């Protein structure tokens, strides 16, 4: 039984390490491609927002973001806003990121919007 606990503990630590690593790649991708419009803190007030016709999405808006599936976010990043019936100003990043990288970016976006909500639901 003790061995089983040890294995479970090891697995938990390993998986949380994996998620942290993914999130780190996602964070770098977010900084490079997203912060210019969505802001350094993801609140939608990036340096480019001032003269834009449509305000970039606030990724810290839990209520709004929790209604989007991971697939919605993936498609919006890969194919652009138009592909999810949103603003054309959100470009398609398919030539800049692989699908695996976009997956990691989605994980990071979730940490901005929904981590608090998930933690409170767990409690």
């Amino acid at each position, binding site marked *: 039984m003790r061995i089983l606990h040890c294995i479970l503990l090891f697995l938990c630590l390993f998986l949380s390490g994996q998620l942290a690593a993914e999130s780190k790649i996602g964070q770098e991708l977010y900084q490079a491609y997203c912060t210019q419009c969505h802001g350094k803190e993801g609140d939608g007030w990036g340096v*480019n927002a001032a003269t834009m016709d449509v305000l970039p999405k606030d990724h810290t808006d839990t209520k709004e973001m929790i209604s989007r599936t991971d697939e919605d976010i993936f498609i919006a990043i890969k194919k652009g806003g138009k592909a999810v019936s949103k603003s054309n100003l959100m470009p398609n990043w398919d030539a*800049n990121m692989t699908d695996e990288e976009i997956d990691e970016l989605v994980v990071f976006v979730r940490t901005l919007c929904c981590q608090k909500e998930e933690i409170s639901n767990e409690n």
Partner: protein
Amino acid sequence: MKINTLYLKAILILMLFQFNPSVNAKELGEVLYEENCAGCHSISDNSSITLSQRLKEKAPTLFYAGNKFNPAWLENWLVEPKRIRPGGHFFLDNVIVTEEGDAIDESKLMDHILVSDVQAKQITEFLMAQTPKSDLIALEKVTFGKTNRTLGEKNFHKFKGCGSCHQSEDGYGGVSGPELYTSIQRLQPAFISSYIRYPEKWDPKTLMPNRHLNENAIEKLLNYLNLIAEQPE
């Protein structure tokens, strides 16, 4: 040791320059490049660069400078450099979070070094000899045509979203990308066309998206860039 080698090279080239000034201007430019530019600008092949490396670059690559810049503009600019990217090379290095939203901290932006007329000519000669990716340039045929300013502006800002990152006039448009109202003076039209078509082929970790525009759409954008180009004084 590296500095000593550079000085030796410079002396040798200066001696050669006495006998054949036109041929060796490029070599003098190389020495000047190594001394003044290489600390921030890379000139090596960028095809396997990682995103982390790209974000740590202090200035744009000059790997394909000869296929990118208009030489007359480059020479003049080196003597009297003006900022082209309102947010700096990588905007995030210069961002501060304010109550009104993110802003560029002007105090973080560095001025470009300036050189003499003669040095600018020599550096330009050297940089214009850097012409990899010419196969991409060969695919482009640019001829400017008439365009309507109102429609062009709407297309640039609203339909194609270029204005989100690029300025179409001083102070109007995004600040993370280079200003585009001076693009026609700065850049070779075939390069602009090719960069819109395949940004990732020029710079694998470019921050510019490939919007998969067709020939007609690229032509429209180029005509608009030509229309908004500031005329040299």
